[in-house]
């Protein structure tokens, strides 16, 4: 899964470097908050551990063997942020010192394996483990599943990166300039090996290590803060905002949403096919500054695509509500509720080891 130089176009490499840099920045900020001055030694030694684990030959069922990435155990022990930094550092050493994986593709490799791999492994582990005891067998199963899913997620991403190359980067004769196979070839070719050997190797090492640590060193499974022995020397000095006050403001804004009804006509450029065909809209387009030519008929693309997705509350007016004002308020309540739900799920998934599990 270590992509060498030459498989991805420069623009793909640049885009994935940008994503990786964003991931590293966020991870470093979060780890620093928890570990403070311990960040460098802990992440460095953990990176060295990740590097060595990648060299282990894992015996697999059927008499064969494979290499694991070790990202799942890193994500369980160090949390996603610590794992992102440790695995990225290990990948950088592999590329820069041992020539395993390219330099221009280091961003892609770190994004696929360290960032996506860590986040998926951590998310799946906690999703499957739920609130089970730290020594429960369910956690071993969770680690195994997390290992399998995370490796395959990283491989799928790499396959996607390979698969988009011929379509995006080819010469005038259609010759692919980088990875030559389209998605329909790249995805199965990449996934066959990972759904079998690599995924299995990661499953074996993740489940086996969690089972061992449950018996021998359970402290390592309690999260990053517990690992250092004491809480981070960080205390927020920001004045806390009263949540009740915030709720009043949100409620007031929701009640204000029917103000949108006061505005006449449709927002510029947000016409439906029926509105676009309307002579008033055509006149409106012609009258606008910029000399826009009005379209005599609805563009075929718009006609085709406007039925692809039908919103549950079209125009902020659910069909079963007669009053437009009440429809607006109900839509606002639904939108705010949906956002709160997403925030709650994200918080639950990503804040657990630092905030809850670290408590004695």
């Amino acid at each position, binding site marked *: 899964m270590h992509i*060498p130089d*030459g498989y991805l176009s420069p623009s793909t490499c640049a885009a994935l470097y940008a994503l990786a840099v964003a991931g590293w920045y966020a991870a470093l900020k979060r780890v620093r908050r928890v570990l403070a001055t311990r960040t*460098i030694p802990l992440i*460095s030694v953990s990176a060295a551990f990740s590097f060595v684990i990648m060299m282990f030959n894992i015996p697999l069922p059927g008499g064969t063997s494979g290499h694991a990435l*070790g990202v799942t155990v890193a994500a369980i022990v160090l949390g996603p942020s610590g794992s992102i930094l440790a695995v990225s550092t290990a990948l950088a050493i592999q590329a820069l010192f041992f020539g395993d994986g390219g330099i221009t593709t280091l961003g892609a490799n770190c994004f696929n394996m360290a960032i996506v791999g860590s986040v998926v492994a951590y998310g799946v582990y906690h999703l499957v483990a739920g609130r089970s005891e730290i020594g429960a067998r369910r956690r071993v199963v969770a680690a195994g599943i997390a290992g399998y899913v995370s490796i395959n997620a990283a491989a799928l991403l790499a396959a996607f990166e390979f698969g988009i190359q011929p379509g995006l980067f080819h010469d005038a004769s259609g*010759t692919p300039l980088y990875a030559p196979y389209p998605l329909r070839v790249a995805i199965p070719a990449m996934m066959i090996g990972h759904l079998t050997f690599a995924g299995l190797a990661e499953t074996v090492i993740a489940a*086996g290590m969690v089972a061992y*640590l449950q018996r021998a060193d359970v402290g390592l499974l309690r999260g990053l803060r517990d690992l250092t022995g004491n809480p981070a020397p960080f205390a927020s000095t920001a004045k806390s905002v009263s949540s009740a006050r915030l709720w009043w403001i949100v409620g007031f804004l929701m009640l204000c949403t029917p103000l949108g009804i006061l505005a006449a006509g449709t927002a510029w450029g947000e016409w439906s096919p029926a509105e676009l065909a309307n002579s008033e809209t055509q006149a409106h387009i012609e009258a606008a500054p910029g000399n826009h030519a009005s379209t005599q008929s609805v563009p075929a693309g718009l006609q085709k695509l406007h039925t692809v997705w039908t919103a549950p509350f079209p125009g902020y007016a659910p069909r079963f509500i007669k009053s437009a004002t009440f429809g607006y308020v109900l839509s606002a309540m639904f939108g705010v509720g949906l956002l709160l739900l997403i925030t709650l799920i994200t918080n639950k998934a990503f804040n657990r080891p630092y905030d809850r599990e670290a408590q004695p």
Partner: protein
Amino acid sequence: MRQGSFIESTLRSFARAFSKALISEHAASQPGLLQRFDPRVRVVGILALVIYVILCHKLAVIAAVMALAITVAIASRLSLWSLTTRVWFVVLGFTGLIALPALFVTSGRPIFTVPGMHLSISEQGIRTAGLLVLRVETAATLTTVLVLCTPWTHILKALRSLHLPAEMVTMLAMTHRYVFLLIETANQMFESRQSRRVGKLTGPEKRRMTARTAGVLLSKSVELSHEVYLAMLSRGFDGEVRLLSDFRLRAHDYAGLAAFISAGCLAVWIGR
């Protein structure tokens, strides 16, 4: 031998890592062409060439950069056999295998039909497979030449002087140092386990053994990180990373840098 093969292949991986490190250390101390330049010139020059190779779309130009890389390797007193086994064979085996079907599946003007089979090699297929293999070979050769001719500490210092954050450089340096310590520890654990083994191990026993070894290594790593942290604190570490940089660019370094950049620009201009 077969029974312990997974242990032995792990031990071989460890031995290969040590061997690579020793070869790099030896090659970096040779009085060759590349070794004479300031490490920053080497890092910038070679990385620029790697980027030019990725940008280039003409086989002949990439081949010319490959020839330049081989010339630099010879002038830097690197063993061509070492490059052949470490880079060229490995890349050819891996990327060559990946590129092979592209000869047949890439649509284009057929230039050769395999007798008795409905398979034909297209002109575009040769070009795309050639571009992939040659580009990967050239980039890997350039990177290996840089790694072999430059001590790791110098690469890190060069990266720091190119404004890579000090924290990242320190993490890379420390990781590199402890990689070898942990390899040595894991090596000893596997060797001792292998020497105590009597009879056949079943598949589940092998997997349990590997997982336990990895688990012990993790516990030792975390313990080691605590000790390293305490050692750093006792030496006055306050979280701020300070690195020394004692490199000084001389006339021939500027000439070398200009040569690398010009070669790259020429490659991009001809190969665009």
